[in-house]
C-alpha cells in the first residue's frame, strides 16, 4: 500500500504541475494526496542567478496538482549553497 505516512514531520520537496518546487515540513495529508506543508519555501531556479528561496509559510496544496513528493536529506540539503546553483526551471505541464 503506497502511503505518505512516512513523510509526516519530515522536510519534503514538492514538485507541482506548474513546475514549482516547494520545500516544507509535511504536517499532514489525506486520501486525495492533499498536503499540508508548514514552514514552506518556494525554490526558484534560474540560469542567470542562484536559486532564490521565497518563504511561503503554511500551505495547503491540492493533491491533483502534485507531481512528486520526495524526502529531503536535511544535512545534505543544508550543505549545499543554493546561491551557487544555476539550473533551468522546470517548465509547466500544458494540457
Amino acid at each position, binding site marked *: 500500500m503506497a502511503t505518505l505516512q512516512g513523510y509526516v514531520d519530515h522536510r519534503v520537496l514538492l514538485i*507541482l504541475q*506548474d513546475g514549482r518546487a516547494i520545500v516544507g515540513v509535511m*504536517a*499532514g495529508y489525506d486520501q486525495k494526496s492533499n498536503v499540508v506543508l508548514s514552514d514552506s519555501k518556494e525554490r526558484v531556479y534560474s540560469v542567470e542567478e542562484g536559486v532564490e528561496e521565497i518563504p511561503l*509559510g*503554511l*500551505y*495547503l496544496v*491540492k493533491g*491533483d496538482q502534485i507531481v512528486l513528493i520526495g524526502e529531503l536529506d536535511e544535512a545534505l540539503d543544508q550543505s549545499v549553497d543554493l546561491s551557487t546553483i544555476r539550473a533551468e526551471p522546470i517548465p509547466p505541464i500544458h494540457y
Partner: protein
Amino acid sequence: MLPLSLLNAAQNKPMLVELKNGETFNGHLVNCDNFMNITLREVYQTNADGDKFWKLKECYIRGSTIKYLRVPDTLLDAVKEEQNRAREAGRSARGAHVSGAGNRGGRGMLQRGRGAMRGGPIRGGRGRGRGM
C-alpha cells in the same frame, strides 16, 4: 493532521487561494466543504499575470479549480492544540464510561460476541468434559 481540518479551522481567517489558471483570490474564509469548495468575503482577485485587480464583496470558488491555499502560520498550532484537547476529552469520557459500567462487555465474558456460543446452553469450554 488532515488538510480539511486545517481548512475548517481557517474559517474567518485571511487566506490566499491560487487557482489552476494562476488567478489568485485574497480574502477571509466564510465557509468550506469537503470538496474544498469555499466562499470568501472582502476579496481581492488578481489575474494570472498579476497586473489586473478586482475587488469582490463575496465569491464562491469550486474546490476542483484550486491549486493551493496559503493560510496563517498560527493555524497549525491552533489545530494541533484543538486535536490534543479532543483526544484528551475522548479518553477521559471513555475511561469514565468503562469504570461506570463495571465489567459489562469486557473481554472474555460469557455473552454474545467473539466466540460466544449462539443461544446454546452455557457450559464449560473445550476440554472441561472429563472427570465427571
